[in-house]
């Protein structure tokens, strides 16, 4: 499509940007609102209009017939169902853990049994400060309802390949929610499509740290990345710090793929990891 359409709150979405197949129901992503005619005069059928509520680029996804606004990447994460998040357990009660997804907002509820293979007796022992990789189950109805997260797919009872569950060791770095979304899209999309998200840092690091024993990474949509290189004994710490520095630098300066490669080599050299 032509240069992407940037909308400001109050602007109407021009109809030619709507996804093609009008049959399937149109799904609205964040940042959009459907307004109906205030006083539908009996003559005209009530006119509906799509207006933006946030400023950003209009992105239409014809496959899933969804339309949403890509707004600024530094905004605060608002829990939405089916998002993968890294939560930090704050305290636990009889059968629930209360975890923090974003600071300065109420805790999310994580059932003590919603882990893979967890039973009354073999439930995981988590204390305050432990990290958990979970999926947002529901954000409750009505104002101020509790957000519920779980580390297991309620349907199958198994945690998907993503490796939901407690995260042991490693280090967590803070990145912007927009960059986290890009990382998730890049890592979930088949490798050759990584170019689309403009991120080569992950497989670049993968190649460079192959010899040193590679690394494990989990990206939370709430702007947290968990990195662990425990299987490269001596320079485990330095490798983790290198990965963390690469991600935060790319997030801050919005580097394009070639600069990302240069940055990775420079930081690995600085951290004295022979690649």
């Amino acid at each position, binding site marked *: 499509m032509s240069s992407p359409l940037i909308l400001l709150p109050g602007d109407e979405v021009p109809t030619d940007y709507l996804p093609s197949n009008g049959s399937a129901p149109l799904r609205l992503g964040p940042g959009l609102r459907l307004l109906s005619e205030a006083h539908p005069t009996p003559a005209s059928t009530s006119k509906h209009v799509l207006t933006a509520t946030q400023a950003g680029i209009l992105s239409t996804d014809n496959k899933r017939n969804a339309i949403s606004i890509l707004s600024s990447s530094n905004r605060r994460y608002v829990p939405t169902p089916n998002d993968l998040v890294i939560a*930090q357990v704050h305290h636990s009660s009889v059968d629930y853990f209360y975890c923090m997804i974003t600071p300065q907002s109420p805790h999310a509820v994580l059932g003590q049994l919603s882990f893979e293979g967890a039973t009354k007796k073999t439930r995981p022992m988590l204390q305050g*400060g432990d990290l958990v990789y979970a999926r947002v189950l529901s954000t409750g109805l009505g104002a101020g309802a509790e957000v519920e997260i779980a580390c297991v797919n309620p349907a199958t009872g198994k945690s998907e390949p993503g490796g939901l569950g407690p995260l*042991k060791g490693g280090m967590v770095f803070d990145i912007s929610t927009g960059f986290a979304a890009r990382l998730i899209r890049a890592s979930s999309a088949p490798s050759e499509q990584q170019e689309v998200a403009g991120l080569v840092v992950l497989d670049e690091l993968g190649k460079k740290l192959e010899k040193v024993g590679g690394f494990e990474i989990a990206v939370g949509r709430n702007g947290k990345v968990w990195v662990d290189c425990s299987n490269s004994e001596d320079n485990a710490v330095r490798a983790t710090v290198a990965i963390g520095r690469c991600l935060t630098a790319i997030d801050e300066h919005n580097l394009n793929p070639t600069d990302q490669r240069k940055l990775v080599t420079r930081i690995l050299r600085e951290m004295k990891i022979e690649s």
Partner: protein
Amino acid sequence: MNKEAALSVAERDFILDALREDVRLDGRSADQLRPLTLSFGEEYGHVKVQLGKTSLIVRISAEVAKPHDDRPFDGIFSIAMELTAMGSPAWENGRQGDFETYVTNVLDRVIRHSNALDTESLCVLKGVSCWTIRADVHITGYDGNLIDASCIGVMAGLQHFRRPDAVVKEGQVIVYGIDEKVPVPLNITHKPLSVTFHTFDEGKLVILDATRKEEQASEADVVIGLNNAGDVCYLSKFSGSPVDAMVFVTKTTVALEKVKELNGIIDKALQADLAKRAKGGLAEQARAENDRLIG
């Protein structure tokens, strides 16, 4: 009350392990400062400090006021710092938390009580009118080490500030505008700065200029305030677990070296700004002249 997000166990352990290998999250060494940038606004006494992610703006202002009755010879110098939600989402607007009182207290001790600004030079007419210098610190981004950054900001502001010239004629004080008479710089007796150390592993590991996460993971903090000549004007170990006394001795030498380095950066920035103003000044006069020619 300051409810910054608590540090997770993984982060705390990792920071400690990394420090044991003399590695820090941003690749610095234990005694290395974060990149410091100082920029000055158009008015005198308007400084913007950026120390890594911690950023703040200092505004110095001057006013004629009545001196305190008990010290008719002295001018008045006050530092006002208010932590707003702009610096960190955890801070509350309009309510003074204990962190704010602690930082303001240290700042007062290091700069005001050590008489960095000679208040006697601020007196205009004994007992009747004197200059009141007020330093306002606006924290625009907090990522650890607020005390050092504020000290740098206030000291740079004081050295950059020029107050209007004032003359006393038979009991009547005449204040000249900035454009009428060349404004007068403040009389700075010495340039104290503070250096904050954080200890880990019962004092075995000591780092300088800690970020917010390193501060939360640390056990105790030691603040040393001294000037270029090496005179210590402030020394405090405020909270946290006990620290071996030798740490104070060894770290004071490191602190002196850092203070000299910081004062060097401040002076370089001041010279650069003076040069810009001088060049700007000439351009200003040039423009003013041809304005008159054209006008």
